[in-house]
């Protein structure tokens, strides 16, 4: 699988009077064509900032302080060099947005204009990016609604005449309007009940199979990602703590934080066990302490943790051993920012209580 969106060492800060708030720090994440990558973390961990920063949708006081974002879509690069999103101007970005990288926004409730019919809003998205005649555009809008499973006659409905799930589907239909290569979904199912959630997720997977776009799926619900995503990246306090295939992450979480997340919801199968949360709250992102940001909440924390450089490496085989950085690292490898704890240790039942 060829990489399509490469986020390399990206740092985003919000400037404020009390100093910079480092919302995203040195995050490296690659999205391959046709792949679903899940980005998860608790509120304020910087997952949305990462996605919107990489597409340059954040407004000042946000500021990208370092790193690079490269896009390798066929239509833009035409087999040549990747396009550097961070050096693009207004016009170049406008060409990329929606046509190449589309976004399904967080709450469909607010993202749809309440006084315009669904049809007009989809047509807006289509006519802004594609050269189609009025008739073709209307036909396209109808096909899009078919695609997401909404009857065509709902085209003339106003947003308030649709249910929450239908509105979310309309948002997804709009995102797919110009056949994008990458779709960023920012908690698209957060406000919906689990049944509708499952419906929509199934639909997303199906659409992905037929249309072949890559998905960056942002959520705070790790259990959802385990089912949906090919790969998962776990963020905490602006840092990437662990990344790897969904199955590997579920089987042997390498970072104590991931383990904590996995422990905080019940599984449908297997024996009953006591649910363990993660005590404490995330740190203030204004003055970052050296080493791992998870130290105050981590039951494995030892003095050496303050010297961890937070770069991703394959999990250590034995406690305290230097991580093996010599082996080949591909985008699919299981990587963790914690060189202290081995996966076996982290997997022991109840260690985080």
């Amino acid at each position, binding site marked *: 699988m060829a990489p399509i969106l490469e986020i390399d060492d990206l740092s985003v800060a919000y400037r404020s009077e009390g*100093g910079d708030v480092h919302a995203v720090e040195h995050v490296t994440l690659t999205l391959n064509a046709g792949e679903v990558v899940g980005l998860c973390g608790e509120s304020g961990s910087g997952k949305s900032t990462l996605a919107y920063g990489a597409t*340059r949708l954040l407004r*000042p006081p946000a*500021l990208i302080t370092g790193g690079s974002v490269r896009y390798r879509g066929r239509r833009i690069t035409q087999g040549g060099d990747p396009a550097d999103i961070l050096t693009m101007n207004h016009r170049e970005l406008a060409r990329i947005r929606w046509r190449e990288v589309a976004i399904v926004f967080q709450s469909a409730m607010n993202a749809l204009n309440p006084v315009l019919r669904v049809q007009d809003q989809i047509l807006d998205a289509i006519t802004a990016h594609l050269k189609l005649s009025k008739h073709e555009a209307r036909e396209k809008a109808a096909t899009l609604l078919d695609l997401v499973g909404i009857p065509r006659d709902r085209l003339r409905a106003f947003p308030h005449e649709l249910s929450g799930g239908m509105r979310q589907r309309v948002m997804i239909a709009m995102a797919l309007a110009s056949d994008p290569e990458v779709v960023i979904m920012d908690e698209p199912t957060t406000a919906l009940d689990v049944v509708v959630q499952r419906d929509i997720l199934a639909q997303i997977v199906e659409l992905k199979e037929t249309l072949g776009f890559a998905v960056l799926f942002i959520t705070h619900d790790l259990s959802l990602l385990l089912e949906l995503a090919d790969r998962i990246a776990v963020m905490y306090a602006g840092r990437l703590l662990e990344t790897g295939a969904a199955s590997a992450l579920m089987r042997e979480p390498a970072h104590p934080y991931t383990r904590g997340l996995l422990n905080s919801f019940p599984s449908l199968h297997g024996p009953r066990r006591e649910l363990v949360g993660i005590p404490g709250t995330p740190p203030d992102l204004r003055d970052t302490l050296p080493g791992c940001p998870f130290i105050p909440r981590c039951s494995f924390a030892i003095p050496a943790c303050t010297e961890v450089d937070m770069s991703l490496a394959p999990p250590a085989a034995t406690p305290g051993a230097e991580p093996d950085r010599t082996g080949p690292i591909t985008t699919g490898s299981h990587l963790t920012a914690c060189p202290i704890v081995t996966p076996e240790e982290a997997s022991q039942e109840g260690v985080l209580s």
Partner: protein
Amino acid sequence: MKSLANIWRNLPLKAKVGVGLLGFFILAAIIGPMVQPYDPSAQTPLTMSAPSAQHWFGTTQEGQDILSQVLTGIRLTLELAFAVGVIVTVVSVLVGVTSAFLGGIWDDVLSLITNVFLVLPPLPLLIVLLGYLSQQGQTPTIIVLSLLGWPWGARVIRAQTLAIRGRDFIDASRETGEKSWRIILFELIPNEISLIAASFVNTVLYAIGASVALAFVGLTNVNSWSLGTILFWAQTDSALQSAAWWWFVPAGLAVALIGTSLVLLNSGLDELGSPRLRATRGTAKVAGHRIWPTDPTPVLAVLQADRGRFGSFLYSFSRRSMLEGNAAGGDL
């Protein structure tokens, strides 16, 4: 005191200029009559003299000292304007908030009254009313201007109150058992404070304009010295024809500057009241580049590379360049 200093620091530059200018005129209005060198009505043999060490702003045809007249005039004009401003603001907040908050028949009646006052033609009415009212002091002018000025603010405040009343936090505070007067005073009004302030400033501006215009055509008490009556006498005694520029320029300039200061203050308050404008203003400059709210997310490295040779030479001396060089990142 500390919060006052904070507010001052957060004020946009134009508001600071506005406050400074207005403060100067208010100061002049307060201490003016105490420090004025002559009685503004006293006639001296020195008529129509240009500015001199004796009479800084020159004298009129009757030999009256213009500096003293302007100092008295600033006080009278500002007194009138602020009186009208306070009355109009109080009335429009009362009417607007009551009609929107109570709704029903109250809203219908109050809106009807507001609309009736809104369609009264102001200028003819002012002329007629002021012609009939006795010309003692400024009270008639204040009353007439207030009577015609309040419906505009009342309409705007009614609309804003309606919008805020529909929000969830008002329902929430009613659910928690707050009394209506408490909801109005502590939940509703603070959300409209920038609107009310802007409406007050606008009204003051309107009162100054209207009163000067009315005085200029001789419809107020022409024997008291307001900025308008100075202009009235300058016009009547054909100052322009005799090239006595010192007669009308100081008063005209005072009116213009007071007006300017109010406009600056108003647009500054607007910016202060709108958090989005405020949030972007403080950070609009990154690495020496102005970033607009509609721009894509700025990239530090690109901005720095874009500085140009001369710009980066200058920048290398700045404090900020040193802050950006260290790993902890810089503050603004």
